[in-house]
């Protein structure tokens, strides 16, 4: 699995220049941010009003972060496809593995909040 991932990454770097990758990441980030900012602000305000369901909201927040991560990778793929119509690299597999790694980090941060930070902060 790891070997396959490294091979796809190598192909990805060969097919796209650093400038093209950075430009695509920048575009995907800005577009994701446009959706994430009001979504996260709204969730923050829902949490402030219904604080007694805090654990539930943290779980929901983890799910929203996973969805935003999916959205970011969707925009990233779209930007790269728009730059080059014929792409040989298996972007789907590459981005799926990237997403899983990032999602695991989100889940770990969320669980840390539920079991460590919230009990410390809510005094």
């Amino acid at each position, binding site marked *: 699995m790891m070997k396959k991932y490294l091979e796809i990454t190598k192909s990805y770097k060969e097919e796209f220049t650093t400038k093209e990758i950075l430009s695509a990441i920048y575009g995907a980030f800005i577009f994701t941010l446009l959706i994430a900012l*009001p979504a996260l602000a709204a969730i923050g305000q829902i949490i402030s009003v*219904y604080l007694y369901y805090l654990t539930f909201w943290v779980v929901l927040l983890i799910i929203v972060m996973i969805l935003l991560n999916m959205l970011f990778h969707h925009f990233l793929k779209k930007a790269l496809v728009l730059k080059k119509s014929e792409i040989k690299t298996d972007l789907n597999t590459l981005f799926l593995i990237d997403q899983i790694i990032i999602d695991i980090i989100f889940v770990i941060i969320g669980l840390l909040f539920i079991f460590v930070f919230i009990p410390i902060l809510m005094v």
Partner: protein
Amino acid sequence: MNELTKAYWPYVKVLILPYLFFAFVLFYPIGYYLDTPGGITEVESIISVDYNQDKDISGTISSTYIVSIIRPTFFQFMIGQFSVYNNANILTGSYANYTNEENAQISFLDKETSVNAAVILAYQEAQKDNPEISIDTFEKVMVFGKANYMSFYDDIAFGDEFLYAMGDQDVIIDDFTLISTYTTEKDSYEFFFKNDKGEEYSRILTKDPETKKFGLTLKLYYLVNKENTYPNYSERNSNIGGPSGGLLQTLAIYNMLVEEDITAGRKIAGTGTINYDGSVGYIGGTEQKIITAYINKVDVFFIPYHDSNYYYDNYMEALRACEKHGIDPTGWLVPVRTFADSLSYLADPEGYWEGFVL
């Protein structure tokens, strides 16, 4: 970036107005307040006393907090309407005059002085059976309120100590209750304060032409002199403000000082400010606190009670809240007038109700 912008530009054009409207709804504050249920906090997690460290406390004593949003955004206000547990109303009184930051400062000043009152009362009560315990206090007059018309409004902060004022014929007024007596001849007088950094400063305050007042509210507090107090206690920083945890703080500190465990395995919570004479004062947000206690399944919930004929008496409000939400108050909702009442209940719950008259 450019490719994405070109591809999504038709959608961006259509969505820009709804987007800006949503942003307005999310960030524009309105002149209301919104009270919602919060949670309970074990007093032990905030205050600890270096005494009876080996004592096994089988139950818990917790103060109750609610979430009070002053000037919520449109969005918060709207989503707040989806639950019958929440209460929204127009902002009035001092809350309306102060900014959110000032309200937070007042709330934390209230909390800090409430903890001092709780320590004083708990130590004095425990001292009756154990002379080893000692408490020393000192008086401090602090800025508690500011009217909009007060001179140098931004220079004088909530919680700053009032030292003295120069009155008529240069009389030094160090008793704040005599300020109006000795400031009759002129419109402006010099007041001396000390800020939280320990720096002394003075400002010349001018009376408002209409009210003939300086617009400054001062309040006398008794604070603990930690150097001459035994045993030592420490207090952790807390995100929760306000004085309504006073009674439960007093109970928890008292339990840390005495030999017996007054919790007897019970999950004790409640609300009510504590006064230096041991009386319990009224609080706000009763309905939300009752719901919070119910959600958290507490065994005992103390609530201030003084007058059954007074509509806003906290116990009467609590009974109405229980009826409204279909909660049975029997056995856990306990009205108290004083700190001594709460101790009496914990010592003999059945006996307490026998002597209770509504």
